[in-house]
């Protein structure tokens, strides 16, 4: 080490007086989640990535086996970095109805739905899950930060919006044995949770909100606790799961499972409106497969005017589709062609699906391709083979999503395994 090497940032003397602690956030480039001690102890690969400023595992021990833990055992995945907002007040429902695409009046307390929200131009700002905790209290979970947008959207509504990403720790427990683990852990009544239900359960002198939701297309749950109860919750699950094959997993495994389930990821499968720099990267809900959320009957919501106009004038430009591609080489970020000639789109995610036993992909295509013109589509895969690209032109077929459908995901009561 050179003698003149600078001290690590964290050890440098800091002029404290001028800064509040919050202003020094940049000295820790990636922060830890409340579960970090447990994850660090299990981490074998040192394979980290950055999830919204958090140090998160891409894999912990073996990404193949981690994936199979989701499908045949139980996988524990730390979702604390997910952005979370607490939305509360007498006008919470009408606030969220104006903010988001779906009809929140149809979301009963104790239920969760998947939704999205747009700017004035009808371009998607983010998608996420909305948890209705009580008549007047909600939690909105998503990928990106939206506090200024939410606060400005609250003008004229009797509602408070609080950022609670740090205050609330969260885990996803996914896989066939996930229900058995929760029961083993003593969460009495958890068997009553149907898909998209949520309920509160006592834990360690406080409580945990458990919802039957997830990002895997499998039987699974998500658990939300105050950050100071995080470790005791982890331990409770870990202990209960010992004989049920519980494993900690990273994002690589989860990403495969979500793709099999046909689920999209903001800023991976589409560019969110506040991130897009190029005007043609903006997407309306109908252009990323979220058209089903749009409820033009429920009353006004952000972007309604433009979305309705785009539909009636038939000016939608893009479509997001599921593709099944011949062969077994994943077509990640491959260009999609019509008649092997005309470039019509791009694959945003692709894998060989171990469950579907098919080569699957999500792709954004330029209408009418993928919409009314679905014949004669091809993807061009460049497979690197010992310092040489093998160029493959493979036939692609537009298929329905999800790519796999597991009965255990929705079975009620859930099976034990």
């Amino acid at each position: 080490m050179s003698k003149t090497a600078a001290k690590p940032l964290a050890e440098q003397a800091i002029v404290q007086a001028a800064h509040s602690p919050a202003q020094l956030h940049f000295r820790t480039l990636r922060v830890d989640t409340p579960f970090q001690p447990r994850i660090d102890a299990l981490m074998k690969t040192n394979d980290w990535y950055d999830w919204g400023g958090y140090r998160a595992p891409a894999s912990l021990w073996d990404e193949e086996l981690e994936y199979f833990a989701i499908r045949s055992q139980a996988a524990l995945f730390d979702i604390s970095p997910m952005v979370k907002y607490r939305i509360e007040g007498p006008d919470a429902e009408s606030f969220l109805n104006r903010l988001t695409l779906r009809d929140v009046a149809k979301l009963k307390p104790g239920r969760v739905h998947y939704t999205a929200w747009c700017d004035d131009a009808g371009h998607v700002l983010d998608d996420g899950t909305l948890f209705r905790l009580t008549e007047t209290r909600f939690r909105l979970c998503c990928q990106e930060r939206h506090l200024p947008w939410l606060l400005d959207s609250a003008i004229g509504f009797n509602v408070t919006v609080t950022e609670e990403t740090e205050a609330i720790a969260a885990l996803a427990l996914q896989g066939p044995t996930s229900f058995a683990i929760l029961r083993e852990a003593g969460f009495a009544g958890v068997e009553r949770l149907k898909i998209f239900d949520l309920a509160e359960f006592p834990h360690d002198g406080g409580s945990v909100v458990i919802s039957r939701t997830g990002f895997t297309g499998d039987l699974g749950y998500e658990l939300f606790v105050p950050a100071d109860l995080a470790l005791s919750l982890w331990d409770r699950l870990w202990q209960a799961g010992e004989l049920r094959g519980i494993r900690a997993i990273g994002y690589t495994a989860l990403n495969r499972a979500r793709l099999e389930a046909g689920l999209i990821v903001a800023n991976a499968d589409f560019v969110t409106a506040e991130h897009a720099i190029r005007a043609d990267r903006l997407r309306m809900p109908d252009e990323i497969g979220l058209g089903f959320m749009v409820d033009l009957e429920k009353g006004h919501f952000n972007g309604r005017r433009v979305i309705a106009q785009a539909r009636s004038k038939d000016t939608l430009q893009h479509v997001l589709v599921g593709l099944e591609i011949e062969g077994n080489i994943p077509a990640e970020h491959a260009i999609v062609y019509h008649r092997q000639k005309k470039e019509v789109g791009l694959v945003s995610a692709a894998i060989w699906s171990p469950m579907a036993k098919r080569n699957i992909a999500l792709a954004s295509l330029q209408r009418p391709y993928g919409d009314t013109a679905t014949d004669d589509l091809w993807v061009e895969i460049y497979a690197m083979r010992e310092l040489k690209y093998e160029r493959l032109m493979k036939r692609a077929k537009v298929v329905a999503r999800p790519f796999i459908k597991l009965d255990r995901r929705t079975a009620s009561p859930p099976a034990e395994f």
Partner: protein
Amino acid sequence: MTSFDAIVIGGGHNGLTAAATLAKSGRKVLLLEAAGELGGAARTEEFAPGFRVSTAHLLNRLHPEVVRTLELEKHGLVLPKGQLAPSIALSRDGKPLTLHGAYGESLSGASAPEAAAWQELRAQLLRYAGILKPLLTRRPPDLGNMSLMEISAFAMTGLSLRRLGKEDMRDFLRMLLMNVSDVADEHQEDDRLKGLLAFDATLGSHLGPRSPTSLLGLYYRLAGEIGAQPGAQALPAGGMGAVVAAIERAAKAAGVSIRTEAPVAKILVEKGRSVGVVLASGEEIRARTVVSGINPRSTFLDLVGTREIDTGFVRRIKNIRMKGDAAKLHLALDRPPEFLGVDAAGHRGRLVIAPSADHVERAFNPAKYGEFSPEPVMEITLPSLADPTLAPDGACVVSAVVQYAPYALKEGWEAGKPKFLAAIMARLELFAPGVGKLVRHAELLTPADIEARYRMPGGHWHHGELQADQMLMSRPALGAAGYDTPVDGLFLCGAGSHPGGGISGVPGLNAARRIIEMRG
């Protein structure tokens, strides 16, 4: 029950103009006014027993197209073409400078070289204001979505620019965003004249004469006219209320139904379309088209409500700057005051206390920090001299617009008002000695009072600062700049829309034309 095609909210002169124009097109129109009387800030009201005055006191921009379209002269409007009011830049040494005719066609009280320089500057200013003038009666450009007609209209503005000649065009572009003080310094020496120009350019806005773009305010002023005389001004007989009365008669003749004391509580919106209004009384009235002549912020945030519009649009509406800086003083005097060195004709004109551009700038400084000017600048008229019916026999009405009186006064207007009144009276006393002893009653309307009395948020008579960033397609805000709005069937027609405030009738006329064009 009668059904209406259009409901106009607000019986100010723009609401009336829009209503009358729509009614003339064959529509059945209902106009709703919250107050007991029409006219908004242009109405003539009693402020002391036997003394009447209008908050808007000078006629200088009532648009000829409005006069023609509504046939206002047939409906009793007397345009005082021959009796233009002079502007007098008062001086403490009793040697005022007078601008005669239409904005100083001739000067008295100035040196010969100064007068010659002024003729040149005046011609230049009027020439340049004339280029901008056609934009007033046109819908602001919709940059993404312009029709061939609109494009050609803007090309015409370009053409008239070319007709200026190369050198003049260069100077027009050079000066467009300059401050008035620098422009005045380039041409004039006389502090009284430069003070007057500085005052006129910044009147009604949160700008000092040295603030960038302050010259635009002077162009806006000079784009007004009376009887084809640009820059002209007059004290209307009967007060500004008489002008309103003529528009009201035109509206009634066209079949407009008018209801006063009918404040609107809510604009009804169903599936993104306005379908009518609900009055404060709970009465619901439906119509295909709703036209709001009131403040854009009140329209969207209070009457429509944020639930029916998008977040980005709410942000833009909330960001409209509309904190007024002008107060209005009304004095009931025992007899007319005598301003130093001003003759009888001068007393019937517009008297301006703005001794120099520096003085105006210094008066503005405290306003930036929420304090009023200790030595305010003002324009004064004595309306009862032109129309004796406004005051009891021998008595006199003083009407003055006074700057700077920031809406959000740091100490609050309850505490600040008596102090500000004292500061104004002290200034008046210097230019009209003895005036203080003649005061029978004084009414000072701070921006807070103007807000409450006329339902003008911020007490701003333009319903939004009239500065470069809030003009044309940014007035009042992107998405509502073309009189139509994000809510189908809802239109704006007030001063908050292009081109802005003053008794012009242009926003009302433009809005009505847009509605007719859109078959609303």
